[in-house]
């Protein structure tokens, strides 16, 4: 396998459909890290993931995964990656044991012992049809399969959607363990920003096919801030200084991208830390500038 700094490198990815365009998307997922890929429904997250997996042909741009071009070295890459989806992609009549047999006949590096260890750890019955599993169990089964062929890159497409907080927490713990090996990376697409705040090293926001923001999560959270003020104070804030503002009957919440500059300029204002969810909301409404 080639030496590489970034597990995924996307440059200028563009794909046009009727009514939707994935427009010049560029971001990297550094090796050994977890990238949160955030956007509302229909933003283009799944389209981007489909381009990564080669399901769709993009109109322009390039994608490198694990240091290799994803079209030239398709099979070498796919031996080393695993994808996890929000629904179980296997027929529900299979048991975990049969799944292991099937995967053993597909992946050269399939490790049956590792898979069985994960089944024990997740308390998944090996001989029960996976159609009878709960949603959480199905997700754990997918993850067990994904982690059992020495994959260097996990691609998660809304994998934690619909799971209860206990199961989601368990899954996040597994990812932390997975990333202890610095050769491994995760791209996690989700609109549950609270999960990504707990685990992501970097985040990329996408909306309506356009990249809004990409960077290290801590940097993004540190640089962005929320100004909460009255209507009269809001009137004094320069529109060029903020992303967008949510207006209420009592005042305004204003998202700024440069906390330090805002502190200096609006020293009397209440400037608070913000969350990824709020950042996403305010960026999505950036075109409107003011919304409620």
């Amino acid at each position, binding site marked *: 396998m080639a030496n590489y700094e970034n597990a995924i490198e996307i440059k200028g990815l563009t794909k046009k459909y009727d009514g939707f365009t994935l427009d010049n998307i560029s971001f990297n997922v550094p090796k050994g890290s977890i990238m949160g890929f955030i956007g509302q429904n229909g933003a283009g997250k799944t389209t981007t993931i489909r381009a990564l997996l080669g*399901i769709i042909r993009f109109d322009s741009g390039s994608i490198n995964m694990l240091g290799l071009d994803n079209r030239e070295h398709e099979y070498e890459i796919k031996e080393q990656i695993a994808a996890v989806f929000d*629904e179980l*992609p296997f027929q529900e009549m299979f048991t975990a044991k049969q799944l292991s047999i099937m995967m053993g006949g*597909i992946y050269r590096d399939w490790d049956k012992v590792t898979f069985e260890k994960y089944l024990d750890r997740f308390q998944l019955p090996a001989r029960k049809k996976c159609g009878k599993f709960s949603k959480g169990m199905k997700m754990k089964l997918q993850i067990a399969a994904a982690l059992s062929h020495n994959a260097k890159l996990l691609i998660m497409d809304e994998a934690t959607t619909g799971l209860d907080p206990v199961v989601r927490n368990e899954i996040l713990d597994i990812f932390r363990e997975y990333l202890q090996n610095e050769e491994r990376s995760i791209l996690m697409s989700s609109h549950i920003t609270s999960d990504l705040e707990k685990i992501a090293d970097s985040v990329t926001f996408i909306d309506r096919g356009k990249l809004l923001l990409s960077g290290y999560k801590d940097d993004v959270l540190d640089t962005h801030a929320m100004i909460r003020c009255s209507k009269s104070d809001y009137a004094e804030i320069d529109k060029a200084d903020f992303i967008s503002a949510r207006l209420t009957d009592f005042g305004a919440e204003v998202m700024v991208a440069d906390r330090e500059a805002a502190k200096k300029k609006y020293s009397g204002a209440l400037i608070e830390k913000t969350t990824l969810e709020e950042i996403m909301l305010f960026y999505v409404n950036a075109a409107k500038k003011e919304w409620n």
Partner: protein
Amino acid sequence: MEKRKSAPIWGLFYREFYPTLKELVACYAVGIALCIVFYLIKLSMEIGNLANMSGGNLEMLKMTLPGYAIYLPGVLFMAEVNGSMSAFQFEMTPKFRCFTASIPVSEWKFVGVKFLTSASILVVGILAAFLNAAIMCSIYDVAFDKTIIANLLLCAVGVSIVCAGLYLFNYLFRSPMAAVIAYLVVMYGVVIGWMVPHFEEIEQLATENEMDAVSLILEDITDFSTAFLPFSVPCIIAVLWLGWVLCALLAKRREK
């Protein structure tokens, strides 16, 4: 870096074959049970209750029953290919297509595995049908000749068309109900298209003697299948392959 070829695929064969196992066993169990029933009927016609039937009825039974015994279990064995194709429905779901794109197996190998699995099941079904026909011919003292082989192969073609065609329609219309309706329209269209030129003849014969009308239809089918015999095997392969490949290509096009 040298490009690696796509991964081994025996896991995919297992995946294709396993879901059909239950239906396969059930189908063959019913087929074998039918064979036993036909054997018992023959015994009864010789030395049992049916032997006491009035002459005309017994003769009618002796004339018609061998046909059912030779062909009916055989069609059942061959129709089991339907079981392998029923998995197809699941595979056009978006999440499954994403999964297939994430594994190191080319799309053509994926389709090829499906084809080989269906073809294997159909070939085994055809062999079982021939075996059944040979046994029933020996039980009912009927010559196991070229006509029977031709008719069985024509049945195999028919079964392939039914199975591949139904699922192709299912995929095109994305609705099982619409697929069945469209399919029935096509099938009845074909049957009516055959019957219309013969309609007056059959009607006339049927008013004089129903058996002559039936014989005329059977003769036409037998003549057709005998003429079709050399083409039947390539036809089966082509129909099965066409069904799978067309669906895979259409699915690809939908994705783009």
